[in-house]
């Protein structure tokens, strides 16, 4: 569903883009964009990809830091990709080293929690539990899930921000209206 909406949004964006040239009905476009944005966001929340922490982030954004959320999310993905790679490496090299594996996952979890990546957090928790139980298979399985969620979220949020940019600064006010 989310993907569908993505496509939808993308197409909308295209159309909007073209229509913008004329600015015939900017409001309509904008409002439509806004709607799309809202829908996207909603789906993200509904899907459990994001939680209220994300709202907090948005609240932090203001005139002084207009792109705060995007910056943070970008930062997050950059850092978390590194962490994911580390975990992957750790699993390959010393899969039995649950201690260090646990530490790495914990870091990832902390990071995810800060932006409200709920699903990812959950998967990390599961991962950690498997680590505690020293269940390698469980660890591997959950790690896969973590990776999957990580990339899914990244994609979604990229779209989100793209849309956001499309909507423009006027959207800022409405954005919070989740």
């Amino acid at each position, binding site marked *: 569903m989310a993907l569908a909406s993505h496509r939808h949004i993308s197409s909308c964006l295209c159309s909007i883009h073209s229509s913008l040239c004329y600015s015939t009905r900017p409001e309509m476009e904008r409002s439509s964009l806004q709607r799309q944005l809202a829908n996207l966001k909603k789906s993200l929340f509904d899907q459990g990809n994001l939680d209220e922490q994300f709202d*907090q982030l948005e*609240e*932090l954004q*203001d005139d*002084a830091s207009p792109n705060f959320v995007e*910056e943070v999310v970008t930062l997050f993905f950059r850092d978390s990709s590194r962490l994911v790679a580390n975990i992957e490496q750790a699993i390959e090299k010393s899969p039995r080293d649950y201690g260090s594996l646990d530490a790495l996952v914990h870091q990832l979890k902390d990071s995810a*929690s*800060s932006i409200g990546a709920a699903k990812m*957090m959950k998967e990390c928790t599961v991962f950690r539990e498997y680590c505690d139980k020293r269940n390698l298979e469980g660890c591997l399985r959950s790690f896969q899930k973590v990776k999957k969620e990580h990339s899914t979220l990244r994609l979604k949020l990229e779209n989100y921000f793209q849309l956001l940019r499309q909507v423009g600064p006027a959207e800022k006010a409405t954005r919070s209206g989740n």
Partner: protein
Amino acid sequence: MDPSRAASTPSHGPPGDGGGPAPEFPAGLRVLLVDDDPTCLKILDRMLRKCLYHVTTCSRAAVALSILREKKGWFDLVLSDVYMPDMDGFKLLEHIGLEMDLPVIMMSSDDHKDVVMKGVTHGACDYIIKPVRMESLKNIWQHVVRKKRNELKELENSGSVEEDDKHKRSLDDGDNASSGCVGNWKNAKRKKEEKDEEEEEMVDEHDDSSNTKKPRVVWSVDLHQQFVTAVNQLGVDKAVPKKILELMNVVGLTRENVASHLQKYRLYLRRVSVPQHHSRYDAHFGSNQEVTYNSIGSVGGYDFQALAASTQLLPQNIAALHSGSRSATNTGMGVSAIDQIGFLSSGKQVTNSSNIISSSVQQINSRQMNDIRGPSNNIALNQLGQSQQVVQPFGSINQQFGEGTTKFFGLPSSELTNFSLPGGTINEQPNNSLARHMNQHGQQFPISQQSCNMDITWQGLPHSRGQLLTETACHDSRLVSALLQQVPPNNISNHVSGRLETSANMLTSLPANYMNASCSTSPQALYPDVRNSFIIGLAGSCYPPVSSIGATPLTGSVKALSNSSNLKGMDNHVPDYDIIDEYHQNKSQDWKLQIVNLPYQSGQDRGHGQSTIDCRSSLMGNQDSTSTAKNVLNSNAGTVTKNIISTRSDIDKEKRECIDQHRTNLVENCNRVNYDGIPDISYQDILFEDNIITNELMNVVRKQQQEGIGQVDNEFNFNPPV
């Protein structure tokens, strides 16, 4: 209150609401944020700024610590993540708590109860679960306020540290006693004046270091002396803060101040393993331990306190105190003779003691201590011999001792290095001198802070010893060593040894447990102090210090002395004082001898001690008394004398005497440390090797320790041979 609404935007932070000029608290709160995760860091930083706080971020704990150290007092609060790659968040928490005492809030997405509990036990003010919400951060200022209020409360009661410093002179009672600062004591003494001032100032700074820091009551030497006196009067075990407060009758002092001080004192005493009276010292020492004498600057009073704490009134004081009426001071002193020395070191410590010590030290210095750093010894002595009686003779010894002791005590005063641990009696009179010395030396004696284990300084640090002593909590060891060493160095060695012997005897007689106990229990700080004081007072109060002395490199007699003295002096300050006091009562001068006698049961070197004691009796003043003292001591410590003996050799007799007396006192109090391990070791030699009292003492102690005690490697492990 909503910080974001705070009026006046602080200089930092977002343009905020702007409002009134001065940012209303908590706006402007200076927060240090530590988190290795860049995302979290960014988010939290933003959130905090939204709260109008002033934020400094860093992603590594080591960096955070260095920032905190560099800019002491700049920050109000620290927010730290728990899981960090370079350093565990809890470790950072500990460091901050110890060094800067700032409120720290831990954060983590880990909400397991045990982790949260860990945060609590490590001293975190709060534990926030990630993801952190704005609301949680909005209220973190409460921790700062709370802390400040607590500190202020204390301060108010006893006056502010600064005031104390300023008051030094005027404050005779050292009001603002605070568990932390001994500096005020110094003020009272003023003799040291400069020292005190400096020290006290340092204390101030020290206290101010964290801006929000505590309004600690500064337990100046005088104040501490009063405290000790009061405690002695009431009986260490029976003393309750309320009564102590009444007895002390100090304006501005609250029951809480006294209570915490008492606690520290008791710890100190315990460390000294002379459970007897000088629990008071324990309190001091306890607190001192942490006090790094280094800050001796502030020591004037503060460090001194630390010193004092550790040394808690050099045995001198104890002894001196015991001498009777002096009890108030003496005991305070006596016990803390070492402590005092330690205190002295800290600068302010018991003014009395310091005075004593300084005076004694001076005396000693002048007299015998060739090297005696001079007043330090006296100071030490003074300290020890808070009891004036003893002090007198001791004065000289003290000087020597003082130096040594100061060393021991970590007196900041470098002078004191020779702190020949005033056997304890040094206390009184030379109080000033001693104290001064102590202070001076005290500085030197960071008292084992550093070495934590007696190993410190003894080894030879004549001056350094002092410093060493002061430095560490190990004061004890240091002190002892310092004392010991100091003792020997100066002519006092003889005396010292004599005394040491006695003390050694005492020490030895003191149940090994004592010493060990005290050694072990008392946080190192005590020990060093104890040791020193112990040495002085080696009176054998079971100072493990004696042994501990051994432990510390004190080698030899110093060890013994220190051990005994430490034990006695320090923890036992209180108890020792009794012993010593007894002696002193009869003869303050004999005191010296007594000391010798006391512990000196073993007599090994008793002869030495005695003889030396006589020799130097100048310090002690009573050759005869020495003999008497000896007897007395013997009875008490017996074994301690051994220690004394060793120290004797080096240290002037006076020193020894002082020490001995101290020891004896100590010994008596504690239980005679069985300084078996130490005995024989020519403490004297060891102790007295160095000319500088401190050195001598230290050496002696060290040697003794090494030889005899051997075990002392850490803190007074001495296990009194018995």
